[in-house]
C-alpha cells in the first residue's frame, strides 16, 4: 500500500513536470532558435548568430541589402512606438476608470449595483471578435476616423474590466475595521481614504495598471478591427508577417517581446504577492 501511494504521488509529480514542460519548452525552443544562422529553414540549425537581433534593432548587417528589409524595420519600429503610445494612454484611462468603479461599488450601496458588476464581467466572457466588430460598426457609423484614437477608446472598454477586477479583489479583502478605527479617531472621510484606504490599495492599483499595460500591448483582435489602414501595432505587425511569410527576424522580435512581457509580468505578480 505504501508503494502504491508513492507511485501515485510520484506519477502525479512527473505529470506536473511534463505539464510545465509543455507550457515552457516551446518558448525555450524559439529562444534558442532565434540565434540560428539559417535564413531559410529556421528550424535547421546551421550556426550561431545574433544578426537577426541586430537587424531588428536597426543595425546594418550583411542581410540588410534588400530594401524590403529596411522598410520592414521602419514599419516595425513604428508599430512598436504605436503600441507603446496606445498602451500608455489606455493604461492611464483604464486605471482611473476601473479604480473609480471598484471604489464606488465597494463604498456605496445603490440601485443598479449588480448591473455594473455584470457589465464589468461581460468583456471577459465575450469573444473579442464580437466586441471588435461592434466597435467597428460604431466608429464608422459615427464618422470617427479609425486610427490611434479609436484603438485607445476601443481597448479601454475591456481594460477597465481588468483593472476593476484586480482592484475590487483587493478591496474585498480589506479590513474595514481599519477605516472604522480611523473615523473613530477623528478623521473625516477624505482623510480616511487618503491615509488608510489608498495606501493599502496602491499596490493593487499598480498591479491593475501593469495588467492593463500588458494586455494592451498584446491585444490583437480588437485592435485589428478598429485600427484602420494607417495604423499598425506590434501584434498586428507580427500577425500580418505570419500570414505573408515568416522571416527569421520575427523570431528575434518574438523573443524580445516574450522577455519584455516576462519581466513586466513578473514585476506585477511579485508586487501583488507582496501585498497579500
Amino acid at each position: 500500500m505504501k508503494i502504491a501511494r508513492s507511485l501515485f504521488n510520484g506519477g502525479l509529480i512527473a505529470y506536473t513536470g511534463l505539464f510545465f514542460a509543455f507550457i515552457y519548452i516551446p518558448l525555450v525552443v524559439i529562444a534558442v532558435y532565434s540565434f540560428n544562422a539559417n535564413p531559410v529553414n529556421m528550424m535547421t540549425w546551421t550556426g550561431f548568430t545574433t544578426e537577426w537581433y541586430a537587424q531588428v534593432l536597426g543595425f546594418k548587417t550583411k542581410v540588410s541589402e534588400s530594401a524590403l528589409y529596411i522598410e520592414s524595420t521602419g514599419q516595425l519600429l513604428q508599430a512598436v512606438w504605436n503600441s507603446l503610445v496606445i498602451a500608455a494612454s489606455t493604461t492611464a484611462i483604464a486605471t482611473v476608470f476601473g479604480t473609480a468603479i471598484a471604489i464606488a461599488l465597494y463604498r456605496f450601496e445603490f440601485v443598479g449595483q449588480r448591473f455594473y458588476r455584470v457589465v464589468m464581467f461581460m468583456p471577459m466572457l465575450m469573444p473579442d471578435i464580437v466586441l471588435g466588430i461592434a466597435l467597428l460598426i460604431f466608429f464608422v457609423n459615427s464618422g470617427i476616423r479609425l486610427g490611434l484614437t479609436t484603438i485607445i477608446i476601443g481597448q479601454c472598454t475591456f481594460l477597465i474590466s481588468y483593472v476593476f477586477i484586480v482592484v475590487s479583489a483587493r478591496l474585498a479583502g480589506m479590513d474595514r475595521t481599519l477605516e472604522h478605527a480611523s473615523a473613530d479617531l477623528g478623521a473625516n472621510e477624505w482623510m480616511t481614504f487618503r491615509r488608510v484606504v489608498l495606501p493599502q490599495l496602491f499596490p493593487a492599483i499598480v498591479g491593475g495598471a501593469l495588467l492593463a499595460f500588458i494586455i494592451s500591448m498584446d491585444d490583437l483582435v480588437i485592435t485589428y478591427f478598429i485600427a484602420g489602414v494607417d495604423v499598425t501595432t506590434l501584434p498586428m505587425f507580427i500577425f500580418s508577417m505570419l500570414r505573408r511569410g515568416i522571416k527569421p527576424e520575427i523570431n528575434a522580435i518574438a523573443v524580445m517581446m516574450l522577455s519584455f512581457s516576462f519581466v513586466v509580468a513578473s514585476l506585477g505578480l511579485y508586487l501583488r504577492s507582496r501585498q497579500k
Partner: protein
Amino acid sequence: MSIASRRRLQLGLLLGPVSAFLAVFFLGPLAIMVVTSFLAPGLYGGVEWTFYPHNFGRILGFADPMFEEFDPIYIAIFLRSVEIAALTVLATLLVCYPAAFCIARLSERWKNFCLFLITLPFFTSLIVRLFVWVLILRQTGLVNEVLLSTGLIERPLDLIYTQGAIILGMTYVFIPFMFMPVYASVEKLDWTLVRASLDLGAGPVRTFLRIILPLTAPGIAGGAVIVFIPALGNFVVPAVLGGAKVMMFGNLIEQQFLAARNWPFGAALAMMVMSVMLIMMVAQVVLSGRRNAAAALAR
C-alpha cells in the same frame, strides 16, 4: 451639505464619467451591432435602413430566395467551431486537472511558485505563442526536421493547417484560463471528506468519482465556460494554425467584415456567437447560484 447628498455627489463623481464612457463606447456599439444584424447590406458596403431578417435566414435556413440564399455551410462551420471549442475544453480540462490536483497538495511556497509559472505565459503575447507552434508544426518546422533527420519518416508530415493543430494551439493558449478555476476548486476541497469516504470503505477510484469530482465540479464548470466561449469565437488561432484550409466561425465573421464588407451579415453571424454566450452565461449563473447558496449555507 447633508451626508446623503454628499454621498450622492461622491458616487456621481466616481461613476459618472466611467458610466458615460461605457454606455457610449461599450453598450452602445453592442446595441448597434444587434440592430445592424437586422439591416440590409448596402450595394457598396454600408447598410440600408430596412428591416431585413434574411441575414439570419441565410444562416439558419428560412431564407426567402428572393433576397438571400440559404447556404448550409454557415451552420456547418458553426458546428465545427462548436466541436473544436468543445474539444478544446476537454483537452484543457484533461491537461489541467491532474496538475491542479498535484499542485494543490504541495507546500505553500511551491504552490505559489507553480501558480506564478502558470500565470506568467498568460501575460505574454498570444500571437507570439502561436508563432511558436507555427515554427514547430509546419512542414519545415521542428517536429518534421527532427523526424526527417533521424530517418523516422521520409516525407514531412502535414501537421499544421489541420483541425488538430488548431485544437493544440487553443489548448496551449487556454490552459491558464482552465487551470485557475479548477485549481481554486481543488484547493478548497475538504480533505476530511476524502478520508471519510475511504474510511467508509470506498476505494480511491470510487472516492474520486463520488466525492472529489462532484465537489470540484463548480471549478470545472467555471473553467469550461471561460474557455468555451472565447474558443468558439476565436479567429486568431485558426487564422494562424488553420490557414485557409480550416475555417472557424471567427474567420467567417472577419471575412464578412473586411473582405466581403457585408456588415449586416457579419453582425448576424456575430449574434449567433453572442446567443450561445448568453445561454451559457445564464446557465452558469443559475447553476452556480444554486451551488453557491448551498455552499454558503454549509460553511
